[in-house]
């Protein structure tokens, strides 16, 4: 177990190094001149050149990367080109909003997904089951910006139940969380359904029934807890989906998280911020996958660590 964890940690660290390198290469290839951007349009050639010197942009590629990587090891993500602030500070100030949104989305998708999957499994083959499964397919087939705008239109513009975007109170959180949760709810509904169907087929459920326990007791005390575990173990893997989702959802709802930070930085070619957010997202994804892999065998002993 310990050697497995150690190996996975090492692998994860290598993946992060790889990602930092690939991202750095991609951003290096961007057809943009950061020095010129920082200096502004009216700056002289000498000013631009001195900024270039200062940032090390005139160094060969590998030296630039080493410089950046050394900084990273000291927790230094560099400074934003345009906002003249440390990237670490920018990310730190935006991260709580994104984490809050993620918590909201996980809550939504678990509640919706598990409820849909449970009802589907219990009414297997019925019209309700088919309807719910079709709905789960719609959930995974709908782009998040469409769902987001639809939610805004129906619940904010028409019904006036929630504010049109923004951040601060609980009612600001509802629509973005739902939007981000719809996709996951679709996946969880289908996973929950098949997991529940599997559990209901097993011997201990038959035993519970034949002991004379009521249907509700069997379902909620015996079947549900067993069926739910493999579904919950998937949350870690979901993080990749969130990290892509927040870029769109935050920009639709004007949610001040790292997704919006990244999107604004991309539009202004503010490379250190793009690098920083990409690395933080990748870190979250790697940790999520690691957690999923470590939790799975605890839940189902048939899965062996390799």
């Amino acid at each position, binding site marked *: 177990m310990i050697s497995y964890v150690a190996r996975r940690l090492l*692998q994860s660290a*290598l*993946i*992060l190094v*790889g*990602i930092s390198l*690939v*991202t750095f290469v*991609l*951003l290096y*290839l*961007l*057809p943009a001149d950061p020095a010129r951007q920082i200096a502004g349009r009216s700056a002289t050639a000498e000013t631009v050149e001195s900024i270039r010197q200062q940032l090390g942009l005139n160094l060969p590629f590998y030296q630039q990367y080493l410089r950046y990587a050394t900084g990273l090891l000291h927790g230094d993500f560099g400074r934003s080109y345009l906002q003249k602030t440390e990237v670490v500070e920018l990310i730190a100030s935006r991260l709580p909003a994104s984490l809050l949104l993620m918590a909201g989305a996980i809550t939504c998708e678990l509640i919706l997904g598990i409820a849909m999957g449970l009802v589907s499994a219990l009414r297997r083959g019925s019209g309700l089951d*088919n309807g719910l*499964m*079709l709905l789960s*397919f*719609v959930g*995974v*087939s*709908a*782009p*998040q*910006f*469409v769902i987001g*705008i*639809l939610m*805004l*239109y129906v619940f904010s*513009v028409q019904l006036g139940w929630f504010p049109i975007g923004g951040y601060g109170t609980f009612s600001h959180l509802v629509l973005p969380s739902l939007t981000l949760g719809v996709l996951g709810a679709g996946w969880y509904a*289908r996973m929950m*359904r*098949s997991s529940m*169907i*599997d559990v209901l087929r097993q011997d201990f459920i038959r035993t519970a029934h034949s002991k004379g326990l009521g249907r509700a007791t069997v379902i909620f005390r015996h079947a549900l807890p067993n069926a739910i575990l493999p579904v919950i173990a998937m949350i870690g893997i979901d993080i*990749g989906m969130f*990290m*892509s*989702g927040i*870029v*769109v959802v935050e*920009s639709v709802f004007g949610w001040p998280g790292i997704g919006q930070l*990244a*999107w604004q930085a*991309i539009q202004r*070619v503010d490379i250190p911020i*793009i690098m920083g*957010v*990409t690395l933080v*997202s*990748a870190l979250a*994804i*790697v940790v999520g*996958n690691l957690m999923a892999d470590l939790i799975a065998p605890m839940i189902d002993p048939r899965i062996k660590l390799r």
Partner: protein
Amino acid sequence: MAEVAISVPVAPTPGVFRRLLKRKLAVFGLIVIALIVFAAVFAPWIVPYNPDEQFFEGLTLEGAPLAPNAQFWFGTDLVGRDLLSRIIYGARTSLIIGVIANGVSVLIGSAVGITAGYFKGWVSTVLMRFTDLMMAFPALLLAIVLAAIFRPSLLIVAMVIAMVNWVQIARVLYTETRSLAERDFVEAERALGAGTFRVLTRHIFPHLVSTIVVYATLGIATTVLLEATLSYLGIGVQPPTASWGNIIFENQTYFTSAPWLVFIPGFAIILLALAFNLVGDALRDILDPTQQGHH
């Protein structure tokens, strides 16, 4: 010569289509796909108007777009163009990108997955570590950065999507190839002196076809969604070429007063992605007996 004894029956493919037709949802998906393909192929002949023409009567006297009406069935956009015609041309964009991007990503994914699964040692290690690395990339961020590097054109958008989407199929095929390569019939074939190429093409690949078909179908849905998202952000397909995503991008600021400009293209995107997901899922059920009951 090895034709004789050693052949394991490949998954029974005949009858797949007939079995597909027995599933209501799959039939619904097939019909939607057929209609959209038809609209895309025959776009120039079926559009009511030129999709790029700005109609004087397409705007109200105040300059606002028209809601759906008898003359413009889906209404008009902010500059008075016919939305129905733009949606029909948008189907072209979605399908062209869907087919190219998904084709390329299936090719890359298959090449990487099968190579890594069949050859042991450093080739496999390098390829799979790279795949792991791609798995940990936030896909949309990567696509956005790539789209920003290259000036977006239809082909570039397709390539960007392919670069992001090949990973899943590579992983699945890697696992399958690996277990196939260790099976007796492959060992026996090799012992009889069959070359690598022959083993791969005649004995491994046929067993992977159903998996590839399933993921290629599901992949089109993913591709359509990613294209729509990139175009919605303004870094995908560029106007004036109509794409369902960029129609929403162009008109979204007016969604409170002209909601049809967002919801009609949005509905089109959902319908197309849903159709491919339904068909792909049905194919997975039909082609993969080990997955029975697991959706």
